């Protein structure tokens, strides 16, 4: 129990290793390491205070939203063995439902923008979460009859069908029973104003003003406040899922993942457990869609919800180790910091220090220049392809992990599925037992 099973813990000297054992230490030290890295890059790039704060804010924002999604994937896959690769679909259901419901009714909105049902935002958000949960219920039904890999195909198809539906021009704007609403089709749709930003534009204005008087850009207040609100949601999600995991409910889920038939032969209605786990996760994804795509950018298009996003979320879980909630968070921090945002940071550093001149060439031209000894065009080309670089990096990490450490960083960790501390109880019981022996209690 004291020897670490993860590659980092094993290499630490004993004193540090005992700190590393604690979950919060794992999370915060990884976060601190990545933050430090980004601060260093910021220094090298000559960022001022606002620039550094902004860079960290963007990083934190991405860690938080990917973290929430990764925790759900861990609940579905790491705990229940449900192979959900339609993650983005449920996020889309959440945000589109909330948006369509909350947009002002026809005739009351600025010209040219899509009308909706005029539902107050808080209600619309609740409706969005519930609709995502309902979508989760529908999607979970095939899992009861299908083998896991076929179920995965169903979830992927589900998400893609939703995306294409939201993109279709037929549903762009429709009128049913006198109500006009729509999805905005391929162009997308304005969602709703960010409640946090609205607050700081009205009653919170004095705080912003106070900050501005010190010379800082006042925008950091609403921006960071929003990130903190999201962080609260992440912490709430972590709390919810850890409690679910450390309980009889979580125990049965683990049993289902391990051996569903054996679990059934122990009088458990496994279908009921699978559906519940799936629906809970999808409800959280619905909320995530609302706050990530809806509140954050104020605009949502169907092309935000592509399978690539689902796969990035999965990579975070795989790096951290499926089955461990803490591992999932650490994996997310590393994924976002190094793989997602890494290429962009490297590119900025290269531009700053290597001083590549010229415009980005086409690939054939770059190759041609390489042959004649000029590497600048190739470099320019490579570093322009940040999104491609992310995918390449992701692929490389996946291959490496599959070969060297398929269980991820913390996949060996067993998070005990009980609502009480079993280690504690066992120790106490054993102490009691040895006490009984000395007084001549029942031996064998």
């Amino acid at each position, binding site marked *: 129990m004291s020897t670490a099973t993860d590659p980092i813990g094993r290499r630490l000297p004993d004193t540090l290793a005992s700190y590393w054992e604690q979950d919060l230490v794992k999370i915060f030290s990884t976060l601190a390491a990545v933050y430090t890295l980004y601060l260093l890059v910021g220094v090298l790039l000559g960022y001022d205070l606002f620039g550094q704060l902004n860079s960290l804010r963007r990083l934190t924002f991405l860690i938080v939203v990917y973290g929430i999604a990764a925790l759900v994937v861990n609940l579905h896959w790491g705990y229940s063995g449900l192979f959900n690769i339609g993650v983005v679909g449920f996020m889309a259901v959440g945000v589109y439902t909330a948006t369509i419901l909350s947009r002002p009714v026809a005739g009351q909105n600025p010209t040219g923008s899509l009308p909706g049902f005029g539902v107050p935002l808080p209600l619309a958000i609740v409706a969005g979460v519930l609709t995502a949960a309902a979508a989760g219920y529908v999607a979970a039904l095939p899992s009861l009859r299908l083998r896991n890999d076929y179920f995965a195909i169903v979830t992927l198809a589900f998400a893609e069908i939703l995306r294409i539906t939201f993109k279709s021009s037929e549903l762009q704007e429709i009128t049913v029973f006198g109500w006009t609403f729509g999805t905005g089709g391929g162009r997308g749709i304005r969602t709703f104003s960010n409640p946090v930003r609205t607050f700081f534009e009205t009653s919170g204005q004095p705080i912003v003003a106070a900050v501005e008087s010190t010379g800082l850009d006042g925008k950091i207040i609403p921006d960071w406040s929003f990130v903190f609100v999201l962080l609260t949601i992440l912490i709430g999600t972590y709390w919810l899922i850890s409690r679910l995991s450390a309980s009889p409910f979580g125990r049965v889920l683990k049993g289902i993942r391990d051996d569903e038939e054996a*679990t059934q*032969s122990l009088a*458990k209605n496994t279908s009921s457990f699978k559906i519940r786990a799936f629906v809970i996760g999808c409800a959280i994804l619905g909320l995530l869609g609302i706050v990530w795509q809806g509140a954050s950018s104020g605009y949502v298009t169907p092309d935000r919800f592509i399978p690539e996003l689902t796969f990035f979320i999965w990579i975070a879980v795989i790096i951290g180790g499926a089955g461990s909630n803490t591992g999932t968070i650490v994996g997310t921090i590393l994924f976002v910091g190094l793989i997602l945002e890494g290429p962009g940071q490297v590119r900025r550093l290269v531009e700053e220090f290597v001083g590549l001149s010229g415009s980005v060439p086409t690939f054939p031209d770059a190759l041609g220049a390489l042959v004649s000894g000029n590497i600048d065009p190739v470099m320019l080309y490579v570093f322009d392809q940040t999104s491609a670089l992310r995918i390449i990096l992701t692929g490389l990490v996946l291959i490496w992990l599959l070969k060297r450490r398929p269980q991820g960083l913390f996949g060996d960790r067993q998070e005990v599925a009980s609502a*009480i501390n079993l280690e504690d109880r066992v120790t106490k019981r054993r102490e009691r037992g040895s006490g009984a022996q000395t007084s001549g209690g029942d031996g064998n």
Partner: protein
Amino acid sequence: MLSVNQLQKSFQGVTALDGVSFEVEAETITGLIGPNGAGKSTTFNVISGAIEPDAGRVTFTGEDITGLSPDQTSSRGLVRTFQIAREFKNMTVLENMMLPPKNQRGEAAWRSVLPGVRDNVQADEEELFERAWEMLEFFDIDHLALEDAGTLSGGQRKLLELARALMLDPDVLLLDEPFAGVNPSLERELLARLEDLRDRGRTFLLVEHDMDLIMQHCERIIVMHQGQTLVTGSPEEVRSEEQVIEAYLGGEVT
């Protein structure tokens, strides 16, 4: 207690069960023997509900349970173990033991989450822990309580399989070769425990290949061959059909 009547089952043209009928009386240890391929495991699968018979009936404490699913039969008190132990490898032994019991309030998701209500779940867990620990002590594997079940030796896995099944408080336990790969002294000890449990009111239907064991410890024996029940009776009665048994089993019966 448990009876099967004219069970028929074929798999893609191959007949596995061809009119299997027998009765298991309450508070007995009954043996089910026969050569490999006789249909013993298939019979267990049909009784427990893992597969549906093409024809025939399974009756348990007077109720027709034919075609019920495994979770339905086991929740009625009819529990089976597997020939190859199916312990949950990614959990500790204790978690394995605490999973089965019925009516755990914490199996409702919301009860495990809400702050005040979770206290009830924790109280349940404490009781469950005590029960699990005592059962582990009964089988002398309490020292393995916090080990990952995947690290257990073959014999230990068999013990866990049995102990875990007992956590469900079953009335009838179908044991599929529970002593295969278990050393003889441990086997004798386990049998003593089973007899103890039988004296306290449980019923066992045991599939085994160890003839000595079967003859010495089972009150009744059912012999199967080629998907049919050949002979049922006390050890003496079955032994006196010796020639039949020798012909089919080709082994010595002491």
